[in-house]
């Protein structure tokens, strides 16, 4: 029995260490963003908002935030629409070649971002879109639609397919059944997908770096800063982005939970 206790204690300590490792850089960047030192070390220097003031007065950062926001809104709307239609197709129709269809719909996130970036750059510059902000949007929609599809498909999996059939039997045509049965049921997951895809787009740096040209998004701005000299402004930007994305994700989570309760009651 004592041996069991010891092993369990060791295993739990191991879990704590893994989580410490995972959260150390996140907590670090938060702390460093308020630290006056350019090269933080022990003992830590004093509290300062210097790095936040620096990014606030940097027009390139403001422009990057505007670009990220524009891209994020368009990407979340289009990829959620595409994800919804794909999820519904998977839910509703068995057809030949469906596994290939699903592979197309789900594969993009498994392609290494460098390869995606190069492929999109080569293709989009050929059609004259490279360096435009549309290039970032198009690439991000390709990468985000699978996430939207996964989120909405999981919600559809909780639905009895007979409900839709019942609506047809009661005289609703397919569009009406879609409008009054499927859409209300999946609404929370649609909002969740909107937020998740926006968060993914807001965080994507590699493909955007390849195709964005002068239209830097926030992560591209960070990458370009990282290549130059050391600048703790990265931590300040990172902290702001973290708070933004977490707000989006928590909103998405709340939406999903709020609807689940009455459904299970």
């Amino acid at each position: 029995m004592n041996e069991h206790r010891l092993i369990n204690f060791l295993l739990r300590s191991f879990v704590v260490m893994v989580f410490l490792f995972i959260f150390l850089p996140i907590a670090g960047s938060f702390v460093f963003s308020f630290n006056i030192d350019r090269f933080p070390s022990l003992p830590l220097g004093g509290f300062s908002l210097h790095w936040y003031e620096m990014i606030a007065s940097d027009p390139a950062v403001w422009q990057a935030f505007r670009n990220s926001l524009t891209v994020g809104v368009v990407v979340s709307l289009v990829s959620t629409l595409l994800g919804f239609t794909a999820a519904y197709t998977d839910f509703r129709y068995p057809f030949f070649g469906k596994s290939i269809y699903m592979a197309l719909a789900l594969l993009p996130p498994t392609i290494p971002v460098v390869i995606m970036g190069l492929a999109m750059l080569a293709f989009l510059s050929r059609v004259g879109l490279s360096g435009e902000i549309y290039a970032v949007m198009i690439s991000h929609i390709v990468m985000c639609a699978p996430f939207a599809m996964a989120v909405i498909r999981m919600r559809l999996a909780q639905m009895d397919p007979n409900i839709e059939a019942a609506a047809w039997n009661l005289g609703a045509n397919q569009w009406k059944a879609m409008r009054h049965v499927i859409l209300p049921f999946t609404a929370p997951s649609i909002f969740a997908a909107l937020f998740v895809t926006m968060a993914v787009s807001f965080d994507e740096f590699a493909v955007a770096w390849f195709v964005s040209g002068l239209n830097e998004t926030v992560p591209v701005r960070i990458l370009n800063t990282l290549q130059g000299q050391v600048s703790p402004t990265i931590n300040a930007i990172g902290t702001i982005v973290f708070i933004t994305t977490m707000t989006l994700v928590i909103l998405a989570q709340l939406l999903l939970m709020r609807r689940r309760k009455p459904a299970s009651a």
Partner: protein
Amino acid sequence: MISDKLKASPSGLSGNTDAQTQHPGKKVWRLPLFGLCFSMPILIWQLIFFVFPLAFLVAISFWLVRNFRMVPTFEWLNWSYMLSRAFFWDAYVHTLAMAAGATVLVSLVAFPCAYTIAFKFRESAKQLLVLLLVTPFFTSYLVRTYSWQVFLSDNGIFNAALGLLGIEPFAMLNTAFGTYVGYFTLCLPLVVLLQLFSLMYIDRSLIEAAHNLGCGRLRTVLLVVLPSARIGIVVAALFCFILTFGDFVSPLYLGGGQPPTLSTLITDTTKSGQQWPRAAVIATMMIVTLLIAAFGAVRFAYRRRA
């Protein structure tokens, strides 16, 4: 619940009958117009903006660069150039070794962690831990990398802490160790999550049966838990391999960029000139390698038990 949904739908008399005659579960060759409206958008989008760019990437590996412009043609020149260069194969072997090493190490570290979360924590604690594991996906990988630079650099936090203990500082940044810290940052949460999901669905009675039959803890883990969770563990390892094989941030900003990996070769070749066809050769080689790895992993995961 059903009646709720039905009340919401107007029961007009214009019911269409073709919907009622469709047999659920039966595969069809052609979808009705309504179905096409839903199945086509993503298909068209991904064909144009996903499949075609990837195919185009392979195609330009046969193009040539003349006067700083790419010329469509079909020559094996880029292939023979790249594949006969020692620096390419050095990078290839280095990338493969680093990614394979990361896959093994991350899986080995993740498993005890996922196992403990799955079997040794209460349900509420489990949910909180899963939530915590999801958090890193919404923090910028670049920002975390930069944060590690501060921890690992020669005058950084870790060396300062070691100095307080009277230990001489040693190089952690710009070494293979640095690259691995980055790889762990990139993959560990995902691998733990994927392993955890496969462990949570193991039939507990199997484990109890093993215990009842006098099987020790370690043997139970090795002979019952591991095989039952094999698919999840292999898929997690595959994702780890794909991510580390293609990552250019950790090798460059934590590993120092020397020796180069395939992905840093691609970014260098692409960003510092017009040699996109050569970069396309590297990318194609990477895709082929990943396809082989994925195929092998899936075969192994779904292999029937002997």
